């Protein structure tokens, strides 16, 4: 049998998805099911004077209306998902989201009341009839405004809007700046929008009073953590709660929150009314009820020597965390750490201040703050290159961490609380390959001058980045040979489209000598697999993949042992292939795996001490620290000088995610990431006014890239296996999305020849309108 690991195997899950048979949360229909709708704050900051539900309750079909007062002891702020890392002197003011606003609302869309009715239509009718008397308060909407002295306070018990402040240093930046040939300072503003998965969020809950069991279907990326939390909050044992994350229509980060108010309330309401309750977020709600990522403002400087070698970087930045900070410091820590990129940065002095604002909560969205950091270092390098008269690709090449320097220690603390280190990598060949793919030399020397002479505004860009992936704590997997001969593979890590049903199957298929299609992967059901953390931080293939690998190897051992006993031969004489175990070189002496599974679970006799029935094993894998993936993106862009509409003429990606399980799936992850990066760089921006009102909360106004906006992308890859896990895998989920912003800015700046006119593009997104404002008329 040819090796299936590493091959572009077609996906196991596709037939169900293509035929419309895959179950998503909104497809759950239960007898007697009621429907929920939320009453949400129309104000960004306002005191709640009174809530009157009498008119809503009088409507036919309405079963219940709950406000914060009705929740009693169940009302409490959510947990901090990720506590602050152990950085000396770190400030962290924990203020987490509440199930329903009590006293005051802190952002538009914060839920104030929950309506339960016989249909969603009636629930929405009734929600409009819940009368709330508001006393609007001054609003802290804009990040810098909210950070200024005297700004309206989001949390009354804090002296200001500071949510957190962290300084991390490496080496002596002040000394580096003093001896530098040049120090370049700039202010950067990077705005990252919201994930907008095509499936919004949703929760369905069913309390079975006779079995005393709660079942919750949830669009979460972390069903096990939801199960544990719900059990604790509701006073149930974890064995009484089953959380199912079935097929999920895209996640990208915001579907892991622990807990959204609806995730706390819908199960509670189902128990309260004694009937199943469904809530499906509509797209308008999604803009407020699901977390964003949004913006940071950086004041940064880079110290370089005369050859453009980096001596140090200093960065002071503000981070908008929204009205609450349940995700701790993950996003700004990622910005702080990822800024260092694939470069040798001998000294670093970085301080961020996270600020509460009267806007929806900020949590990780694909890239999770890495974009912001990459933008800063890449733009600083561009400016330094220009001031020193060095080519943009060359200044990068000169500063790359050399191949023999791994493992490389960056000395500061990463989001997983370990020292930020790069386990492996080989950056210079990636850069060379990307430059070759985009045709850098020829474009700069020949094409660009020729096209410019014809009046065309064409430019090129090249950027490098690293991505810390595959962090702990751990994931697990259970592999079992069924008596049918098929293999089941259970893991706690849910899927939102990443192809887990296939990639994980590919890992065990070779080990157990079966076809990928004969490995049934079951994920996202807490009744099937008890332990796990969740799908985030590009960690599924790295962490769960290695647990699957170890479980598969353990089952292989069991197969060989049971077969050796059966055949009364040595294990080394056996081979496993095509669903059978055979004695090598002895035709006819073989047994199907299914029959062996029956032998391993005998009806008579005893299971010998120290052994277990069945051909089954469970393993866990937890890496010491994350595996660092890397990449280089390059782009040629043309801008219409009349409309400022850019057209990407060529886009090349070179990436290194270590060992690849399925190249087709990896390609899909990278391509999808780049598309989201293009949206981020070009025109995705949540437009808030000074009152904290979101002005573009529809998909007609908040524009996602279409098939006309995303070009054909050329992919190349290099492989440096990670030494941190047996399979050598590094994560790839977020990679494509990370470096597109600085690439866009660099290429557009070049296309419009802005530096010649003393102009720079130091912010993202760069919509045509904004580009026009920043660049002015090129004529």
């Amino acid at each position, binding site marked *: 049998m040819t090796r299936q690991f590493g091959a572009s195997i077609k996906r196991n899950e596709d037939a169900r998805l293509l035929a419309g048979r895959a179950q998503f949360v909104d497809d759950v229909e239960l007898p007697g099911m009621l429907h929920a709708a939320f009453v949400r704050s129309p104000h960004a900051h306002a005191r709640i004077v009174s809530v009157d539900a009498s008119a809503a309750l009088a409507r036919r079909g309405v079963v219940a209306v709950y406000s914060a007062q009705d929740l009693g002891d169940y009302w409490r702020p959510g947990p901090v998902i990720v506590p602050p890392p152990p950085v000396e002197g770190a400030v962290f003011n924990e203020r987490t989201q509440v199930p329903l606003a009590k006293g005051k609302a802190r952002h538009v869309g914060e839920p104030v009341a929950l309506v339960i009715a016989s249909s969603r239509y009636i629930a929405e009718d009734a929600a409009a009839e819940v009368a709330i008397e508001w006393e609007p308060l001054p609003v802290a909407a804009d990040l810098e405004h909210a950070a200024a002295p005297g700004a309206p306070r989001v949390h009354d018990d804090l002296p200001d809007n500071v949510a957190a402040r962290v300084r991390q240093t490496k080496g002596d930046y002040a000394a580096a700046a003093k001896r530098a040939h040049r120090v370049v300072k700039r202010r950067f503003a990077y705005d990252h929008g919201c994930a907008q998965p095509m499936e919004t969020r949703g929760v369905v809950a069913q309390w079975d009073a006779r079995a005393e069991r709660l079942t919750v279907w949830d669009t979460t990326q972390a069903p096990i953590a939801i199960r544990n939390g719900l059990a604790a909050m509701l006073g149930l044992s974890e064995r009484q709660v089953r959380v199912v994350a079935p097929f999920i229509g895209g996640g990208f980060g915001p579907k892991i929150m622990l807990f959204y108010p609806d995730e706390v309330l819908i199960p509670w309401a189902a128990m309260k009314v004694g009937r199943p309750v469904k809530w499906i977020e509509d797209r308008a709600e999604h803009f407020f009820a699901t977390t964003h990522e949004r913006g940071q403002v950086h004041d940064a400087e880079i110290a370089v020597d005369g050859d453009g070698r980096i001596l140090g970087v200093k960065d002071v930045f503000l981070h908008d965390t929204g009205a609450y900070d349940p995700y701790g410091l993950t996003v700004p820590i990622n910005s702080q750490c990822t800024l260092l990129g694939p470069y040798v940065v001998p000294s670093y002095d970085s301080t961020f201040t996270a600020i509460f604002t009267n806007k929806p909560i900020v949590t990780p969205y694909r890239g999770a703050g890495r974009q912001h950091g990459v933008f800063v270092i890449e733009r600083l390098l561009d400016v330094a290159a220009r001031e020193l008269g060095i080519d943009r690709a060359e200044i990068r090449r000169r500063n790359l961490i050399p191949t023999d320097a791994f493992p490389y220690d960056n000395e500061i603390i990463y989001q997983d609380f370990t020292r930020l280190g790069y386990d492996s990598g080989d950056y210079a060949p990636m850069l060379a390959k990307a430059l070759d793919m985009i045709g850098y030399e020829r474009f700069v020397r020949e094409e660009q001058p020729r096209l410019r002479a014809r009046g065309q505004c064409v430019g090129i860009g090249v950027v490098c980045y690293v991505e810390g992936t595959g962090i702990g704590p751990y994931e697990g997997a259970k592999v079992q040979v069924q008596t049918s001969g098929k293999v089941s593979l259970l893991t706690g890590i849910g899927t939102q489209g990443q192809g887990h049903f296939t990639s994980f199957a590919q890992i065990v298929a070779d080990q157990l000598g079966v076809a990928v299609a004969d490995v049934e992967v079951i994920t996202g059901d807490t009744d099937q697999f008890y332990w796990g953390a969740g799908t985030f931080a590009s960690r599924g293939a790295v962490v769960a993949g290695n647990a699957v690998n170890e479980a598969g190897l353990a089952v292989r051992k069991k197969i060989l042992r049971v077969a050796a006993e059966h055949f009364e031969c040595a294990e080394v004489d056996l081979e496993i292939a095509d669903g059978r175990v055979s004695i090598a070189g002895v035709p006819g002496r073989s047994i199907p795996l299914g029959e062996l599974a029956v032998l391993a679970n005998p009806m008579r006799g005893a299971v010998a001490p120290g052994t277990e029935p069945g051909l089954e094993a469970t393993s866990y894998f937890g890496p010491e620290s994350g595996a660092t993936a890397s990449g280089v993106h390059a782009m040629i862009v043309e801008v219409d000088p009349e409309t400022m509409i850019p057209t990407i003429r060529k886009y090349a990606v070179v990436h290194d995610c270590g060992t690849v399980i399925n190249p087709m799936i990896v390609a899909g992850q990278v*391509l*999808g990431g780049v598309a989201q990066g293009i949206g981020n760089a070009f025109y995705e921006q949540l437009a808030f006014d000074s009152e904290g009102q979101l002005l573009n909360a529809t*998909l*007609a106004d908040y524009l996602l890239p279409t098939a006309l906006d995303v070009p054909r992308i050329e992919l190349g890859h290099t492989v440096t296996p990670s030494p941190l896990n047996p399979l050598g895998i590094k994560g790839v989920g977020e990679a494509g999305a990370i470096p597109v912003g600085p690439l866009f800015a660099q290429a557009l700046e070049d296309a419009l020849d802005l530096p010649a006119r003393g102009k720079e593009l130091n912010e993202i997104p760069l919509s045509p309108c904004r580009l026009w404002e920043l660049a002015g008329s090129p004529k």
Partner: protein
Amino acid sequence: MSDDRARLTTTVNGTRYERDVEARMLLADFIRHDLGLTGTHVGCEHGVCGACTILVDGVPVRSCLMFAAQANGCALTTVEGLAPAPDRLHPLQEAFRDAHGLQCGFCTPGILMTMKAFLAENANPSEAEIREALSGNLCRCTGYQHIVDAVKLAAERTR
């Protein structure tokens, strides 16, 4: 019949249904919740994303922008009606599987229905034509490249 109810007779994937529906019920909700055909997905409820696209008398329509009552007398095709048999896929569906034209699969039913009508009109499309035809359907996972490849593949195989 009261003003807020409507009588509806429609054929969906070849099966005839006669129902009494609320006048304001969206066609998407009727298909999904009354008929239990949950393959049609609702992504935005304002006609932008295209996930809920079905064929109404052979023409792609956003079922979130139509009332169920407006489908009276119409023949509808949903994603469940594409495959020739429960254990087989339509060539378009096969091509999506072969070219990795889907990831989470939520937008996929709407894209399949849109492309089915498109390929019926244009059996030999260029990449630019495919992208134009796809541009009314949003996909957040794939970056579209593999979808374009899948549509090309389906067109080649069907020619």
